[in-house]
């Protein structure tokens, strides 16, 4: 198990390096620079001297290979650089926003798991029933509904019509402010979890060993608890892992809509003004989060199903 864990963790390093290279190259070749973006809103007129001075100060006048080398060296020292715009360390900017992003992702995932998994399980236990049909129609609707639109709908209903919850913002970090963005973000994984749980459970229910268990006279509740649940869990854990891993990236739109101060909205603003160190740092953190969650999922697999760590 230890060897398996070390192997999986070591695989993260080359992935991070490739991602870092990709981000660097992409933002080096796309048109537009930080200095020039400062007057792209037409409010201020271009100032060639200031642009040149800024490019010098920010090291953007150096050759590309030199800049990449500096970037990798800084990265090796866990230094994500300094924001062009705020002139603060990128790590500090991300740190300021990370907690809000995590809060949102965890709350959305809890919402999705607590409702999605039991719903999918119950639907699978009664295939073809009204509950099954309603669950699947709900799941398809949840998957196909644009999050932005759903968010607006929830704002309209719970804030404007019912007046139960605030429509936007972080407030003092209370649960009231978290509910609407978390539900909006959690609906897609909820729908996906309900569908995959149902499919996984149905698959196991039709397996030979379940028939054998029934033939031995085992009670329905024991079959479900001991055999169905455990075997269906691998698919559920995979879905939870994938969804949880990509949730911070997915939250970009939700953060923007609800004025939620996470790293998603930081990323969007930074792309718009070509604040490359912040863009690079934020994307790296999102990728790292995804990789860590997936590594954790792999380790959980191994714990659930010993056959996996032997492969």
């Amino acid at each position, binding site marked *: 198990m230890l060897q398996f864990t070390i192997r999986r963790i070591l695989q993260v390093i080359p992935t991070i390096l490739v991602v870092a290279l990709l981000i660097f190259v992409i933002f080096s070749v*796309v*048109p*537009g*620079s930080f200095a*020039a*973006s*400062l*007057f*792209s*809103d*037409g*409010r*201020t*007129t*271009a*100032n*060639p*001297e*200031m642009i040149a*001075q*800024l490019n010098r*100060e920010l090291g953007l006048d150096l050759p590309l290979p030199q800049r990449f080398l500096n970037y990798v060296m800084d990265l090796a020292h866990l230094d994500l650089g300094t*924001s062009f*715009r*705020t*002139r*603060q360390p990128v790590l500090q*900017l991300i740190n*300021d*926003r990370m907690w*809000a992003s995590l809060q949102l992702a965890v709350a959305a995932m809890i919402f999705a798991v607590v409702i999605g998994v039991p719903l999918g399980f119950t639907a699978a236990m009664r295939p073809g029933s009204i509950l099954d049909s309603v669950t699947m129609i709900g799941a398809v609707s949840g998957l196909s509904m644009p999050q932005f639109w759903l*968010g*607006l709908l929830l*704002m*309209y209903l719970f*804030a*404007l019509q019912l*007046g139960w919850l*605030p*429509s*936007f*913002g*972080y407030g003092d970090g209370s649960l009231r402010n978290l509910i609407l963005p978390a539900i909006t973000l959690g609906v897609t994984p909820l729908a996906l979890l309900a569908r995959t749980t149902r499919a996984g459970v149905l698959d196991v229910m039709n397996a030979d060993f379940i028939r054998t268990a029934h033939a031995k006279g085992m009670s329905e509740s024991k079959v479900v608890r001991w055999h169905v649940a455990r075997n269906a869990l691998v698919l559920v854990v995979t879905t939870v892992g994938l969804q949880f891993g990509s949730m911070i990236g997915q939250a970009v739109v939700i*953060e*923007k*809509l*609800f*004025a*939620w*101060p*996470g790293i998603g*909205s*930081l990323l*969007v*603003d930074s*792309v*718009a*003004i*070509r604040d490359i160190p912040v863009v690079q740092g934020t994307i790296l953190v999102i990728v790292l989060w995804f990789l860590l969650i997936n590594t954790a999922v792999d380790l959980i697999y191994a714990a659930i199903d010993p056959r996996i760590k032997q492969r």
Partner: protein
Amino acid sequence: MFKRISLAGVLALGTAICAFAEEPRHGGTLNFTAPYGSNFATLDIHSSPSIQEMFISQAIHRTLYSWDATANEPVLELATSVDVSDDGLVYTYHLLPDAVFHNGDPLTADDVIFSYKRIADPANAFPGARRISTIKGGAEFIAGETDEIEGLKKIDDKTLEITFTTPANPGFALMENNMAIYPSNVDVATQATEPVGLGPFVFKQHVPGSQVVVEKFEDYYEDDKPYLDRVNIILMAEGSARDVAFRNQEVDVSILGSTQYQSYQEDPALQEHLLEVAEVFTRNIGFSPEFEPFQDKRVRQAINHAINSPLIIERLLKDKAYPAVGWLPMSLSAFDKERKPYEYDPEKAKALLAEAGYEDGFEFEVTATPDESWGVPIVEAILPMLNEVGITVRPKPIESAALGETVSSGDFQAFIWSNQTGPDPLSVLRCFYSKTAQSSCNYTAFSNPEFDALFEEAEAELDPEKQTDLLRQANNLLQDEAPVWFFNYNKAVMAYQPWVHGLVPNANELALQPYELIWLDESAPESRQ
């Protein structure tokens, strides 16, 4: 159109006047929205070129001059009076005797000199540096050739002498928010996290990505102001979310987009509380002089005649704009009220094209961002109109961040943009002066000896009225020469809750309001009392 403009002006002014007619009430919390992003990049306004941070500096800081939104001119802010030399170059400022910083230190001439030197420091590359270049020795300081700015001289603690290089009104440059006066004895590094200024509100809290909270400064130099106890400056970039929050009374003001504007106008409960103003932004399509057909004035004029701007404004922008007459917007004194916009006349356009030798038309591309008010959708709207006179247009999409670089490098046949065209007509028209580089702001590389002569004369003129008259002539000449398609002037619209008073029709940027003048009446919800 002019009727509509006057009506909007009267309504806007009426709102302001009504607010002042009542007795302002002290206390309360204002939930103000900052709609231009999801982030305050810095609290150090010297380093900020963007409007977003100005929402904060407007509360915390003060500049030597400020903008009088009702009179539409810069006025002295941190000085009781100023003596100007006969040649209009030397200004002696008598600083406010009772202005103190939030840390209790009084304002002195040293603070002004310290602030201007910091803004101009070449090591900082701050956006306000170019404004210091109008001070004698400023350019040399910015270039790193000297350690002092020659034109800044302290007479005593409360008297400051500034020598300028031209007799132009220095108020326009020195009123900008990023020209704020900082205390000289406070570590400037702290200004990025805990700003200290002279403004009516003291910095209290910054929740990154969420809001900045400021509270009333008891020792503010204006008697009886500010009225509010607290202002929450809330980041709300998403228009539809802002709309819900406004309707839910969670925020007190909201800047409206064109779709919202239409729905607010149709709602009896909301239509009474809209503040409208023609902002100093001119939306336009700039023509490249490198592209052969655009070298002929008649072709540029033909395009102005071929496009039905009022129709686009009505259908696409839902009337949230005013058709542009020329380059300078309506609120500027150099705007000629007698002038009319180019008339929509396809036949005249065809005749002009034929005269110029393009009776069979030609094809060109317009570099455009996705912006709904001055981007690809507008290019798509003019496409059939120009097609009717034989011209084929292709939009060339570009990301917003890359537009400035593309245009200033001259890499375009035509581009569509929204450019700030005020409040200083002299600096705005400088962008069409032939000695101004394309990489600076003469984006269409405009060169016209007659215009140059008018501009130079205006620049040297000491009499404000004569100067305005010369600039008016230059602007009219620009309209005739049509280096751009004059599309529209932005109509900025702010919705405000019925309990909010003291808002002003700020033509420079409606979203920026003088917080110290704002007050809330008894009808405000309990959470704001």
